[in-house]
């Protein structure tokens, strides 16, 4: 990777398309001429080894053949073939089961053939990256800033003296700030190798504080290998400045990772905070209600295949309704007969969870289903070269906070919330005041289940959607609710977020497996000390 992170992401495609167009225009089509270098290059493409093919690409690029660029573009798109009968280099487009081919050099139409008559010239990752960079360095003078940036970025990874000279000439005319910065880095990287001491020291100064991996690696080489003391010292100083900056960024990154893991935990647990926390029902089918929410997203996407970007906005209310109704069904059908008998409730809801899983397995598929990410959820927000925050995580943190706030409002500001709190604190008294406690139970359970469904929509964007989705989150959910303090929404939020952050800070040095175990051990010890969690409920309700 390296400096190409300048243009990673969505722009890549646009840039590439632009390059291709540019090349197609500059390469006039002509008959195959006698160009031995080009012919050698084409011959090398027949090899099985990708190293040989890379040599072939270089030969073709250096040949100056008018069709060279066009051939490379075809190769990049994996559309280049040899015709088996006469070994002619052809460009093929898939046409149903057959291929429509034309001469790769002259574009002469050669009709349609079966794929068995063609030998595809295979490319791999590395070869494609090579072709791309070969094409990109030709684009340093492009009028499009994004294309220039791509070209310069390629130079950071693979310095090429000729191209560096072009950069030196171009720098003065460069209007785009980012491109100019990248160009200066490229030049500095070249200059630190300079014989002239002042030039070299100036270049080291220029690179100091740059977060680009290429800059770091360049400085490291000087610090390790230079024979000159001053240069060595300057490089080491620059490196330590970079190191400090890196550590700050790393800290920020870990914190972000922790919060995003925490927000997932909060989302998964917050529905349970209501059914378990407020109502005291041990609902082992909570995970399956999350799963139903995720499957609702899948079905919504099936129903509106052309509007994937909007599908989540439809899926959120839909999942709330589906999971909520199933939840009410479970409450009315099973749980209400078992109030006050926690063991039976546990077993019954565990049975329900198995039934729901198997229903999905036989009804939809035992396989995982594909839920697509809307385009606005892919990619990342780049703060600098080493710190970027992925959009899907950012949105989910925000979403978790919104759901939390909405629940808080419902419980504290609405009539339903008032009744829920009344029933959970003192059922006989609430009934005496005219609260229909059975109805409130059903609504509360429905609310908790519906929120689980909404969490399922969010999880469908992060993980697999399959029959086992719920099982992965049920333990974590109980953990968060118990740690936060049963019956306290704020406890759930704080517990989820802090467990996420602690987990992520432990992970780098303990590993993912051990970090999880450590967190569990910590919770066990904590519960020993404070059995009612972080924020215990006070007063008479707590005794009931």
């Amino acid at each position, binding site marked *: *990777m*390296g400096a190409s*992170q300048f243009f*990673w992401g969505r722009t*890549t495609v646009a840039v590439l398309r632009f390059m291709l167009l540019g090349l197609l225009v500059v390469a006039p089509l002509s008959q195959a001429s006698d160009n031995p270098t080009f012919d050698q290059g084409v011959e090398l493409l027949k090899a*099985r*080894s*990708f*190293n040989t093919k890379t040599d072939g690409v270089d030969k073709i690029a250096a040949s100056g053949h008018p069709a060279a660029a066009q051939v490379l573009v075809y190769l990049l798109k*994996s559309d280049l073939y040899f015709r088996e009968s006469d070994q002619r280099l052809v460009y093929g487009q898939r046409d149903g089961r057959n291929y429509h081919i034309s001469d790769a050099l002259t574009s002469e139409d050669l009709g349609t053939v079966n*794929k*068995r008559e063609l030998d595809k010239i*295979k490319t*791999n*990752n*590395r070869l*494609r*990256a090579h072709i*791309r960079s070969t094409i990109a360095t030709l684009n340093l003078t492009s009028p499009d800033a994004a294309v220039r940036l791509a070209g310069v970025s390629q130079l950071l990874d693979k310095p090429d003296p000729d191209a560096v000279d072009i950069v030196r000439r171009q720098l003065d005319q460069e209007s785009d700030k980012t491109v100019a910065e990248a160009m200066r880095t490229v030049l500095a990287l070249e200059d630190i190798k300079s014989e002239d001491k002042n030039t070299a020291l100036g270049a080291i100064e220029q690179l100091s504080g740059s977060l680009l*991996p*290429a800059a*770091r*690696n360049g400085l490291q080489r000087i610090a390790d290998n230079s024979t000159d003391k001053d240069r060595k010292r300057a490089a080491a100083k620059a490196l330590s400045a970079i190191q400090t900056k890196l550590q700050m960024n790393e800290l920020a*990154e*870990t914190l972000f*990772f922790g919060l*995003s*893991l925490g927000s997932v935990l909060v989302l998964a647990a917050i529905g349970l905070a209501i059914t378990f926390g407020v109502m005291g029902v041990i609902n082992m089918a909570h995970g399956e209600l999350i799963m139903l929410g995720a499957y609702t997203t899948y079905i919504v996407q099936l129903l509106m295949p052309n509007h994937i970007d909007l599908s989540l906005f439809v899926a959120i209310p839909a999942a709330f309704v589906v999971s909520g109704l199933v939840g009410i069904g479970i409450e009315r059908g099973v749980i209400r007969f078992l109030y006050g008998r926690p063991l039976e409730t546990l077993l019954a809801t565990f049975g329900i969870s198995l039934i729901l899983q*198997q229903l999905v*397995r036989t009804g939809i*598929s*035992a*396989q*995982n*289903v*594909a*839920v*697509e*990410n809307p385009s606005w959820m*892919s*990619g*990342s927000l780049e703060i600098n070269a*080493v710190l*970027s925050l*992925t*959009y*899907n*995580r950012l949105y989910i943190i925000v979403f978790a906070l919104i759901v939390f706030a909405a629940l808080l409002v419902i419980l504290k500001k609405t009539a339903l919330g008032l009744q829920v709190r009344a029933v959970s604190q003192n059922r006989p008294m609430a009934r005496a005041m005219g609260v229909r406690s059975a109805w409130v139970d059903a609504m509360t359970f429905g609310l908790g289940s519906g929120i689980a469904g909404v969490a399922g929509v969010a999880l469908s964007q*992060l*993980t*697999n959607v*399959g029959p*086992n989705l719920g099982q*992965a989150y049920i333990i974590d959910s109980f953990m968060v609710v118990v740690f936060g303090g049963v019956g306290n929404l704020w406890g759930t939020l704080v517990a989820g977020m802090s467990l996420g952050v602690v987990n*992520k800070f432990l*992970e*780098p040095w303990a*590993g*993912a*497996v051990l970090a999880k175990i450590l967190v569990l051990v910590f919770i066990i010890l904590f519960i020993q000390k404070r059995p009612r969690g972080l924020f215990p409920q006070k007063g008479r309700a707590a005794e009931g």
Partner: protein
Amino acid sequence: MKSKVRALAPALLASCLAGAASIAHAADTIKVGILHSLSGTMAISETTLKDTMLMLIEEQNKKGGLLGKKLEPVVVDPASNWPLFAEKARELLEKDKVAATFGCWTSVSRKSVLPVFEELNGLLFYPVQYEAEESSKNVFYTGAAPNQQAIPAVDYLMNEVGVKRWVLAGTDYVYPRTTNKLLEAYLKAKGVAAKDIMINYTPFGHSDWQSIVSDIKKFGSAGKKTAVVSTINGDANVPFYKELGNQGISAEDIPVVAFSVGEEELSGIDTKPLVGHLAAWNYFQSVDSEANEDFIKAWKKFIKNDKRVTNDPMEAHYIGFNMWVKAVEKAGTTDPAAVQEAIIGVAVPNLSGGYSAMMPNHHITKPVLIGEIQEDGQFETVWQTSGLVVGDAWSDFLPGSKDIISDWRRPLSCGNYNVKTGKCSGQNY
């Protein structure tokens, strides 16, 4: 007398219909056990293999069965529960008296049934790539050993992609741990420094990959070409690739080569973040051969779904089943001892246009293919070994096993023979 029997018949039928029917059945059919989980976590992968076996048996019956008898599948469901695998295996061997069993997916399920098959002298055909370091008289390993998948994949990355730094990422259980130990030893033997190897394990079904992907990104920014060798188990893969995509790491920056991602796994997910990443297998659905075309057509027709895909373990069952059929024909009986002897050296067509043969160590010969993931969930083969690779039961790169060989032909008849000490360890595997 005759009339008496006739008079008795309805009563007999009524009283012990099931028993009588099964006895009559046993006489003119050969039973084939199918031991794959149809419920629980592994159902996702194993259900397909059960259907594959049913199709192969149906086709064989259409061709007239075996030794003049029809084949009868006996399907049991071990429900992704490892001890239950052993129980069901015992049931198949003792109660149903199956001639051969095709089954298991995870290594732990295989280890669980191994003592049963050895005790009752049954035959098990195991179709999944695994960590090797095992060779049982009663098991035929038709999936890839590490030298038929992991090692060639690393060779490809090293020689054709120029990879200098390695991330070995896996799920925390026996297959990744053994494979990574082996790969680490192999890389070090090839001159890779310890600081250029990063090993990472994650729990089953891990879904929060942020820190690990960020670490990989940092590890890969040291200026040397980096690749990830992934033994991450099925389910955890999707969030892993998604996170790679979101953090801006493309297949051209840091390619990931996976040993557990096949067509079946890809058919359940949004493939966009995976395009260009690699997988190493012995078969891809995209392989261009007549045999494969017929197989895919037959599969789609049998399963009555045009969208279903084929994958590597299915091919392993195809090869294993045909080998067993051929060995039974050669031996003239389904007796396990005779089949064990007859099957060594048997060669049958595989789906990539060649022949696979059963070797004396109960592993088979296969080609190794490296494919890049395409948008449609299929693989494009970018590289393949020039010939067939013989499965190695005992790795040459691990200190404990490099002197051990396995040869089930007489007179050696040992799965664990130490060439240095000249002793057979005596254990059966």
